[in-house]
C-alpha cells in the first residue's frame, strides 16, 4: 500500500465530509446546501428521485465537477487542495455506466485499479497482485477474468468495476447505483459485500434507487430531493411514508419486510392528490405534479380522513396500505392477532384492536373496536377474496376473531358513522374516491355503500 505521508491524518475525521455543497449546471442549480458525513465503518445510502442530484453529489466528491460553493473534505483534508492522485488513494468509485470501447481483458481492467499506487514504469508487485486477486474473488469476477470486457454482460461489467474500485484499496468507496443491472442474487451479494467493507472500518457512500435495499444495508440514508437534503438519518427514521411520499411525489406505504425485518417501501401513483371536489374530472390517473414543486400539498392538505378497517388477510392489508399511502389515518379491528392487516396498520402507526385467534371475542375488545369505528369518518369493510363479506358469521378466521359465535365485527360496523364495503377487485381510484365521497369531515348519516 501507499506510504503517502499526506494520507496519515487522524482517525477521527470522517472519511467523507460534505459541507454546504452547491452545484449548478448551465441549465440551473442541481443541488444546494448539501451537508452530510460518511464516517469510518458506516455505509450511507444516497436516495432520491431521478434527477435529484445523487450522481452530481458523488461526482463532486470525486472531484470531477467543481462545486459552486461548499467544501468536500476527504479524511480531514479539503479535496480542492489534493491532487488527483491523492484523491484516488482515499476514494475509489464505481460508476453508474462506463464506456469501455477497447477490448481489454477483465483482469486488466481490475489491475487498472492499482494505478494510484504505481509509478509510471512500475510493474505489479506482490501487494498489487494480492489486491487484484482479492478484489476479483470478493466480487465473483475471477471466473471470467480472462474474457474481454466487451464480451461480458452488463451485470458482470458492473461487478468488474466494483472489483476495480476494491483493488484500489482506498479507505472510502463511492458507488453510483452499484446494483442497478445486477440480478437478485448478485444485488444482495453486492449489498452484503459493501456492508462487510463498511463493517471492516472503511466508509461507503452509495447512490441507490432501490429503497428497500438502502433500508436493508445502510446505516444512514440521505434523501436528496427538490435540490437539497430532504431528510437524513437511520433508515427506520428517515424512510417514513411521509418523507418518501413528499420526496418522490408519490404515495408510499412503509411496512416491514417480513424476510429481513427492514423497512419495505411500496410506492403508489399519487391519486389522492387529484382534486376530489371536481367530479367532472375524468377518473383517470393524471400526474399530480404540474411543475408546481414548491407548493406540495402536505398530508393534511390531501383531505386526510380517519378510516377504520374491518377485515382480514392480504386483501385487507393491501387496501389498508393504499389508504395509508394516500395519507389517511387508519385504525383496524377487531383483527386476529398476527394477521397481516394488524401488521400493516401498526406499521403505519394506527391503532389496532386485536383478539387472540380461535377464541371468542370478549365484549371489552369489541367495544374498543367499536369506539375506533365510531371515531372514524368512514369504516371500510373488506370483502374476502371469495366475494363473501368479512363480517359473515361462523366462518373460520373470518372478519372477527374466530369461528365461535356471531361475528364480533357486526357490532363494530354497527357503531360506524359511514360504512363502505370494498371488494377485492375494487380499483385504487374507486377505493380512494369512496373514502372521500362526501367531501367533508362532519358526521354523516350511516350509509351503506358497496364498491366492487
Amino acid at each position, binding site marked *: 500500500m501507499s506510504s503517502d505521508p499526506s494520507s496519515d491524518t487522524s482517525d477521527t475525521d470522517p472519511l467523507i465530509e460534505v459541507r454546504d455543497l452547491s452545484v449548478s449546471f448551465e441549465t440551473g442549480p442541481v443541488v444546494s446546501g448539501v451537508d452530510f458525513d460518511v464516517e469510518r465503518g458506516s455505509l450511507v445510502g444516497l436516495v432520491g428521485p431521478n434527477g435529484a442530484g445523487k450522481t452530481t453529489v458523488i*461526482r463532486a466528491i470525486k472531484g*470531477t465537477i467543481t462545486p459552486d460553493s461548499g467544501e468536500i473534505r476527504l479524511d480531514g483534508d479539503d479535496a480542492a487542495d489534493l491532487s488527483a492522485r491523492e*484523491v484516488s488513494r482515499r476514494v475509489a468509485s464505481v*460508476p453508474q455506466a462506463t*464506456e*469501455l470501447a477497447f*477490448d481489454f481483458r477483465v483482469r486488466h481492467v481490475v489491475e487498472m485499479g492499482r494505478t494510484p499506487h504505481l509509478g*509510471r514504469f512500475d510493474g505489479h508487485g506482490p501487494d498489487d497482485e494480492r489486491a487484484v486477486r482479492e478484489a476479483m474473488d470478493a466480487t465473483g469476477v475471477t471466473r471470467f477474468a480472462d474474457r474481454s470486457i466487451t464480451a461480458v454482460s452488463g451485470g458482470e461489467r458492473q461487478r468488474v468495476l466494483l472489483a476495480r474500485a476494491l483493488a484500489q484499496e482506498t479507505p472510502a468507496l463511492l458507488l453510483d447505483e452499484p446494483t442497478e443491472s445486477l440480478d437478485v442474487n448478485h444485488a444482495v451479494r453486492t449489498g452484503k459485500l459493501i456492508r462487510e467493507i463498511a463493517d471492516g472500518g472503511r466508509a461507503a457512500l452509495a447512490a441507490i434507487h432501490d429503497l428497500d435495499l438502502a433500508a436493508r444495508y445502510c446505516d444512514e440514508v440521505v434523501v436528496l430531493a427538490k435540490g437539497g437534503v430532504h431528510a437524513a438519518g437511520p433508515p427506520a427514521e428517515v424512510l417514513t411514508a411521509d418523507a418518501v411520499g413528499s420526496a418522490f411525489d408519490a404515495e408510499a406505504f412503509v411496512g416491514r419486510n417480513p424476510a429481513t425485518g427492514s423497512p419495505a417501501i411500496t410506492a403508489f401513483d399519487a391519486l389522492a392528490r387529484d382534486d376530489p371536489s371536481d367530479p367532472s374530472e375524468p377518473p383517470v390517473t393524471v400526474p399530480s405534479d404540474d411543475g408546481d414543486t414548491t407548493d406540495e400539498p402536505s398530508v393534511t392538505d390531501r383531505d386526510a380522513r380517519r378510516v377504520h378497517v374491518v377485515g382480514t388477510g392480504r386483501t385487507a392489508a393491501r387496501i389498508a396500505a393504499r389508504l395509508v399511502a394516500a395519507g389517511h389515518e387508519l385504525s383496524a379491528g377487531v383483527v386476529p392477532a398476527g394477521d397481516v392487516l394488524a401488521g400493516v396498520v401498526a406499521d403505519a402507526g394506527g391503532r389496532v384492536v386485536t383478539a387472540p385467534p380461535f377464541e371468542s371475542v370478549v365484549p371489552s375488545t369489541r367495544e374498543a373496536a367499536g369506539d375506533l369505528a365510531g371515531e372514524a369518518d368512514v369504516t371500510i369493510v373488506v370483502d374476502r377474496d371469495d366475494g363473501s363479506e368479512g363480517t359473515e358469521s361462523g366462518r373460520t378466521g373470518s372478519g372477527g376473531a374466530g369461528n365461535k359465535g356471531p361475528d364480533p365485527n357486526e357490532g363494530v360496523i354497527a357503531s360506524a358513522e359511514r360504512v363502505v364495503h370494498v371488494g377485492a377487485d375494487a380499483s385504487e381510484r374507486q377505493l380512494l374516491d369512496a373514502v372521500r365521497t362526501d367531501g367533508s369531515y362532519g358526521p354523516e348519516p350511516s350509509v351503506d355503500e358497496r364498491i366492487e
Partner: protein
Amino acid sequence: MSAWVRSAAWSTGLAAMLAVVVVVSAAIGPVRIPPAEVVKAVLNALVVPVGIETGSPSAGSLSVSGVSLAYRSPFAFPVEGVHQQIVVGVRLPRILLAALVGFALAAAGTVMQGFFRNPMADPSIIGVSSGAAVGAVAFIVFPVALSTTVAFPLVGAVDVGLSYGAGVSLFAFVGALIAAFGVYAIATQHGRTPVATLLLAGVAVQTFLGAVISYLQLQAGESLRRIVAWLMGHLSGASWSEVAVTAAVVPPLFILLLVYTRDLNVMLLGEEEAQGLGIEVERTKRILLGASALITAAGVAFAGVIGFVGLIVPHMLRLVVGPDHRVLLPTAALAGSSFLVAADTVARSGTAELPVGIVTAAVGAPFFIYLLMSREVHEL
C-alpha cells in the same frame, strides 16, 4: 508476463523486421545491390566517438569552437565505391526519413485513436496535416526571401536564409502547430477540453483550411504541380540534414508518449474514471495532444501529407498485440516505419516515381479491408 516485458519482446521482433526491410529497400533501385553489400556499406558508414581533442581539428573529427569530437569508423569492409555512395549517400537518407516519418505518424495515430476513443482518429484529426499543408502551399505560392544575412554578436554575419526545401518544411511545421493549437484553443473552455468538442473543432478547422488550400491552388499558376506533389506526400530528395532534424525531434517525443502509455490506457475507461484513478486528466490530455501534434508536424514537414499510415497501422497492431498502449505504441510505431519504408520502395522503384501517399493508400486500404473481412471487428 509484465506488459513492459511483452512490449520489449514485440518491439525487438519488429525492430528486426524493420532492419530487414531497410536493407532490402536499400538493395532495390535502378542499380541492384546485393543485400550483403548493403549491410557492409551501412556498417562502413558507422562512426563511433572515441574521444575529445582540443586544438586544430584533424581528419575524422567534428569540431565546434576548437573542441573536437574524434571519431573513427570501426568497420572497413571492401565495398565497391559506387555502391557505397548509392547506399549511404542516396538511398539511406530517404529510407531513414521514411522510417522516421512512418514511426512518427503511426505513433501519433495510435495515441489519437486512444485519446479520442475513436477508430477513425488519425494524426491529422486535430488539424495538424491541414495546417502543415497550408503552410507549405503558402510558401510554395509566395516564396519569401530565401536568403537573409543576420549579424550576430561574437559570431559575425551568418546567413540564416532558408533553402527552398527548408522553407517549405519550416512553414509546414509552423502551420501544423498553429492549426493544432487553434483547434485546441477553440475546444477549450474553462480549462477543460472535452474530447468530442475537440474532434468537431478539428473537423471544422480542417474544412476551413481545405478551402484555403483550394484557393491557394487556384492562385498557384506554375507551382501547382509542386503543390500537388507535396499534398500527396513525397520522400524524394531526402537529405541527411532532414534525417538529422527529424531524428532529433521524433525520438524524444516518442519517449514522452511512451511515458504516458499507462495513463492513456486508463483514459480509455473514460475521463472521469481516469481522474478517479489518480490521472490529472486535463494535464495529461494537453501533454498527449501537444506531443502528438509535434511528432506529426515533424513527420509531415518534410514528407508532406502521407495518409493512412497513422490510421491503419495502429489498427493492424491492435488486432495483433491488443489494446494495451504500453505494447501497442512502440510496436505500432516500428510497424509504421517498416510500412512506410516498404511503401516508399514501391513508390520509387517503378519507371516513373509515384508520390508515396498514393502507394500507402492504394496498398493500405485493400489490406485493411481484408483485415476487416477476415476478422470481425466489433470493437476497437
